[in-house]
């Protein structure tokens, strides 16, 4: 079947559905939706529709990115605009079915917004909502709108027209198109995609490999998961285009085992592609052959590094090796290999569908297009976002993220995961692009963006990253293996209040040694969290080292709990909840914490009734309390 025939068939099927009289219900059932109860919501809809004998189409879709409002449901009644509802529960399901499907009340009180054409009174437009307004959705264009298990829906939305167009021109012309788009590697390093492709295209040899790196290992990053779960065909179409341009005959998707739903959806999508003649031999009747396999990662962060990833695909320990030879010269099984990240590949499909000029209108001079970020941590609106490059960190944190949760103070934004850096409030107006973030000491990275507030201790936060990189260092290069351990030991002792004056210099020395003496990017970037926090938050290190004080009140060895004698009402709740019986005082007696016995679990602070608020957590200050329990003065 030709592509036009495939497209026609898909369009006919779709218009039947659109013209039909059945309402459509779209439930977001990506992993994030599921953990918020989307499957229960899905069941509730099916149950409610059966009970009321309503004939409707219930579809599972991917994640639209508003994770903080999950579970998210869209309802499309024939002749009405599509309405999106958030924080849906099984109870809300029965209300929506009764009020909107049976009656005609769209329940504006529950609606987030209308999607697409048409408006309804009292309901804003979905993409005008503050968290969506400054977003530009290219990679995430279909996430939350399409059934990822239905290839025809993807085709109706322009899917596979990118590969169809690519197959009409030469591989070199495809590379030229990607060059014009300005696309750079979205895995984090920002290497021009077209140039990488050209290396592989020009490498001699009949047998070449293409790898999609879906080993999204950065803790705090879930961009690739969402795309794989919500729009797997975009990634697969991008792989076909990349394979055609580079001359690859075989491909692998290297996806981490922690993403079972992504793996399942890829598998379903690939079967459909084969059925449609979009994978295997003689693709779309053009003589182009490409064979694709899924490889499940086995849990090693370093396998995100391309030479380690290739070793892992070959069934070996995933340890990096020196370059050159570069993968384009000698990669998997010694054959020329091209490796791209999921987001890069999904973007390629959009560029070939809509043209390089269209894509290049977004972004900055040197960083074209859009980038997805997993916005998490202490912002009000967490989720998956896609923004044009050049947007400022402030716009992301405040306009899209809604600012800091519980109206606390912003402290830091961390980009690039364990390889990236922590930027402070002073850097909030920096534009997000490859060069600016690198100058600030961080990296664009794959898209993790974690916001920390005043309750996050920067030294402890840094220690967290080092714990991760230290554990994940493969051990091949001594500076990385030993150096990360040494840095971690120093950070450990600073957080324990045993920091020494010379520790800061030592951290600098070690950071430089690890950075310069490691073969791969894991070691090369592992010191970034240390270097950026020393640069922007030196005062917090000094408070720990010189004053033995943790300003964020996090480091256990540096904090103490006291009971304020002026506020304690002698209710005994704290004493009863203390696991080590460190609190003395009877009924109507001011309680006292025995500092020797206290294990600083914080239970007393949690259980003290808010109307008393008598438990104080302090660091570096002494609080005056009586030696023995004294009677509560009731006038207070």
């Amino acid at each position, binding site marked *: 079947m030709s592509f036009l025939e495939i497209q026609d068939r898909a369009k006919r099927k779709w218009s039947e559905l659109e013209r039909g009289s059945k309402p459509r219900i779209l439930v977001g059932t990506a*992993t994030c939706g599921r953990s918020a109860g989307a499957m229960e919501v899905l069941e509730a809809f099916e149950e409610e529709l059966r009970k009321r004998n309503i004939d409707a189409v219930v579809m599972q879709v991917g994640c639209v990115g508003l994770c903080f409002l999950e579970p998210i449901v869209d309802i499309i009644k024939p002749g009405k605009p599509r309405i999106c509802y958030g924080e849906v529960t099984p109870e809300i399901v029965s209300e929506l079915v009764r009020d909107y499907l049976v009656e005609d009340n769209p329940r504006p009180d529950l609606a987030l917004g209308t999607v697409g054409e048409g408006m309804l009174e009292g309901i804003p437009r979905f993409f005008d909502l503050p968290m969506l307004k400054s977003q530009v959705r290219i990679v995430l264009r279909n996430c939350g709108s399409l059934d990822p298990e239905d290839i025809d829906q993807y085709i109706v939305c322009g899917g596979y027209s990118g590969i169809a167009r690519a197959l009409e021109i030469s591989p070199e012309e495809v590379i030229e198109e990607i060059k014009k788009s300005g696309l750079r590697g979205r895995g984090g390093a920002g290497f021009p995609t077209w140039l990488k492709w050209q290396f592989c295209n020009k490498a001699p040899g009949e047998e070449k490999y293409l790898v999609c790196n879906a080993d999204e290992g950065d803790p705090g990053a879930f961009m690739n998961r969402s795309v794989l779960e919500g729009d797997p065909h975009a990634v697969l179409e991008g792989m076909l285009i990349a394979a055609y341009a580079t001359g690859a005959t075989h491909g692998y998707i290297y996806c981490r085992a922690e993403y079972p739903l992504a793996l399942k959806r890829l598998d379903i999508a690939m079967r459909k592609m084969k059925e449609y003649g979009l994978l295997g031999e003689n693709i779309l009747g053009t003589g182009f052959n490409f064979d694709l396999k899924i490889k499940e990662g086995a849990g090693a962060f370093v396998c995100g590094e391309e030479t380690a990833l290739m070793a892992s695909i070959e069934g070996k320990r995933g340890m990096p090796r020196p370059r050159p030879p570069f993968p384009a010269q000698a990669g998997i099984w010694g054959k020329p290999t091209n490796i791209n990240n999921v987001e890069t590949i999904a973007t390629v499909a959009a560029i070939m569908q809509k043209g390089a000029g269209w894509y290049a209108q977004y972004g900055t001079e040197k960083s074209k297009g859009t980038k997805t970020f*997993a916005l998490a941590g202490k912002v009000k609106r967490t989720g998956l976002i896609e923004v044009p490059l050049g947007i400022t960190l402030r716009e992301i944190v405040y306009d899209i993220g809604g600012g800091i949760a519980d109206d606390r103070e912003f402290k830091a934004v961390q980009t690039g995961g364990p390889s990236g850096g922590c930027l402070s409030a002073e850097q909030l107006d920096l534009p997000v692009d490859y060069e600016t973030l690198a100058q600030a000491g961080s990296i664009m990275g794959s898209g993790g963006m*974690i916001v920390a507030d005043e309750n996050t201790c920067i030294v402890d936060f840094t220690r967290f990253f080092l714990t991760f990189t230290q554990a994940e260092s493969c051990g091949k290069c001594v500076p990385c293996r030993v150096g990360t351990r040494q840095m971690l030991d120093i950070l450990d002792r600073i957080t324990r209040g045993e920091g020494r004056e010379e520790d800061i210099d030592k951290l600098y020395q070690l950071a430089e040694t690890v950075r310069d003496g490691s073969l791969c990017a894991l070691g090369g970037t592992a010191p970034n969290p240390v270097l950026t926090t020393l640069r922007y938050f030196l005062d917090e290190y000094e408070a720990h080292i010189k004053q033995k004080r943790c300003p964020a009140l996090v480091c256990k060895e540096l904090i103490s709990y006291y009971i304020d004698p002026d506020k304690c009402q002698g209710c005994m709740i704290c004493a009863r909840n203390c696991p080590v019986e460190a609190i003395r005082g009877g009924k109507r007696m001011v309680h006292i914490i025995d500092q020797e016995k206290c294990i600083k679990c914080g239970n007393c602070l949690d259980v003290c009734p808010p109307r008393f608020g008598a438990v104080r957590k302090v660091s570096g200050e002494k609080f005056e309390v009586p030696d023995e329990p004294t009677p509560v003065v009731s006038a207070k």
Partner: protein
Amino acid sequence: MGSELSGVLVPFQGEKGTLIPILQAVQAKFGYLPEEAVFEVARFLDMPASEIYGVATFYSQFRFTPPGKHTVKVCLGTACYVRGGAQIMEAIETELGIKAGETTPDMQFGLERVACFGCCALAPVIVIDDTVYSKMTPGKAKEIISSYK
């Protein structure tokens, strides 16, 4: 074990780079990599068992002792960490009386730490068997664990 394993191994016959998928299939069958199975795989692939152990121990997915009936995974990714994942881990360790990486003596619960599930926006999360629980607090985590007892 030989006959039990042959069904797992046969589909991989004649393919390149199959060691990791084979070990994943073996672990899917037994829940861990029993020593006899590793030797069986060594014979099948005609490679030293030491090399197989070299690969298996490199990856955190593989385990060499039987798992508990329920596997409790606590996410300690960045987002979960910032939102108190470490306290969740502490609470579960206290509740089960074991440390991360251990199994309760009655083999009911195994406890693992995971670097990230990708549910960062709903942090902190734990996963018990295949169910994800989001927006945890130490109290909620203890309750959920108890419901599996």
